[in-house]
């Protein structure tokens, strides 16, 4: 009886830690940080906003194991970080400094818009500027779909099989564009926001 219980526990435990490695390598190239400073210093920029195309490019390499695993697939997500642990409200940019008396409100996260695009439109959110209400929202650039593998070379939505930007550039490269349109609602000052891209195997 005891053995049966223990075996059952073992099966349950194994089920819960089933995220075993199916791929040999997942990598963003290069994965060094980018720091983009956007300055609003005249009325035209405040009115029209500023768009920066290809603020960075996410180039993906996902290699299968030496003995190919048919379950090797990946997903790519985007997170917003505003140092909320230090007290920044979830829906605001992190304040570095205020110009003047800072009597108004600090900029909210929704003034940042992000667009992802590549030639094969592999992201379900391809070529759409999307804003975020707070730092909890996640953009799934490539959806996490376990068991539904779309092979490289198919040039369709949600390609998530092994491949590389070196051989399938239009599917494994993502141009990231940002647009900022603060209007005249917020305190002048310097503010920070971090955009984190996470590539992981399914």
């Amino acid at each position: 009886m005891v053995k049966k219980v223990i075996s059952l526990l073992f099966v349950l435990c194994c089920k819960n830690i089933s995220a075993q490695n199916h791929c040999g390598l997942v990598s963003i190239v290069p994965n060094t940080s980018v720091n983009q400073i956007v300055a609003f210093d005249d009325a035209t920029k405040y009115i029209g906003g500023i768009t920066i195309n290809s603020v960075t490019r996410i180039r993906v390499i996902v290699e299968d194991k030496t003995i190919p695993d048919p379950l090797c697939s990946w997903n790519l997500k985007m997170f917003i970080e505003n140092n909320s642990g230090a007290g920044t409200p979830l829906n605001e940019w992190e304040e570095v400094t205020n110009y003047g008396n800072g009597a108004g409100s600090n900029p909210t996260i929704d003034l940042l818009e992000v667009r992802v695009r590549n030639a094969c439109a592999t992201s379900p959110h391809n070529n759409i500027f999307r804003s975020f209400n707070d730092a909890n929202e996640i953009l799934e650039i490539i959806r996490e779909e376990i068991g539904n593998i779309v092979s490289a070379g198919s040039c369709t939505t949600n390609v998530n099989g092994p491949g590389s930007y070196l051989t399938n550039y239009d599917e494994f490269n993502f141009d990231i564009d940002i647009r900022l349109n603060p209007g005249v609602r917020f305190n002048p000052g310097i503010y920070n926001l971090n955009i984190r891209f996470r590539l992981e195997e399914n």
Partner: protein
Amino acid sequence: MKKNLKFLLSTLALVGFIATSNAQLIDEKDVAVTLDLQPVLQLDMTTANQLEFVFDDINEYYAGITQYAATILKVSSSVSWDLYAVGRSSGATAAGFWDQQIDYGTNNANAIDQLPLSLLELRQSQPNNGDGGATGAFSDYSAAFSANGVVSRANSLYVNGGAITPPTANDKYIAGHFGTSGNAGQDFMPGGSYLTQTGTTSDYYYAIDYRILPGLPAIFPNAGNADGTVAQDIVTTTTNAANYAEPGVYTMYVQYVLLEDQ
């Protein structure tokens, strides 16, 4: 029992091994965006370098000379703002008075060379919609110029002894007003730009008319102090009903000040 314990330990060890060896492969990249919102206060002004009022006809003394829309003011601002005009001179004649460049004829004892800066009258095309907290009789320059013979100091230029200091709650602003209540319409104009306004009027666009009315004798009856409650015409200020403005050439300047409401 001992056998069962051994089995349990081996199972846990195996589970532990699997758990450690099955970490997902992950890679990350960060893009830090630094937003630099600089305060922008932009006043675009279209005007002649010099406005000349030449009084060489008796009718012009009676009726005055008006220069319509001689100055166009266009505001763009990323912060809450106030706009005011202030009369200034070098103070060579006296602080708060026009600079006399030359006088004509002999010096008559009743010919006064101290012309108050407030004799210049302004009229703005759009009423001040940010003057809710104003306490004076005239909060802006939007009143129509008074008819000849009707004394009104509703349009006399704000002057503070020739200094650039902002008007008080009793005095005139073109837009916004004294104070920092934080309530729009009370004492400031919200950020915005004339570029995005529609319709025939805008709180970010002002056409300024100028008038000088000497009267006869030339005492400038509409000159008044900052809040328009005290007459500053030549007879009143010199307390001599026989006095009048000395013929000559005089200069002064109007300074338009756009500032953040703080």
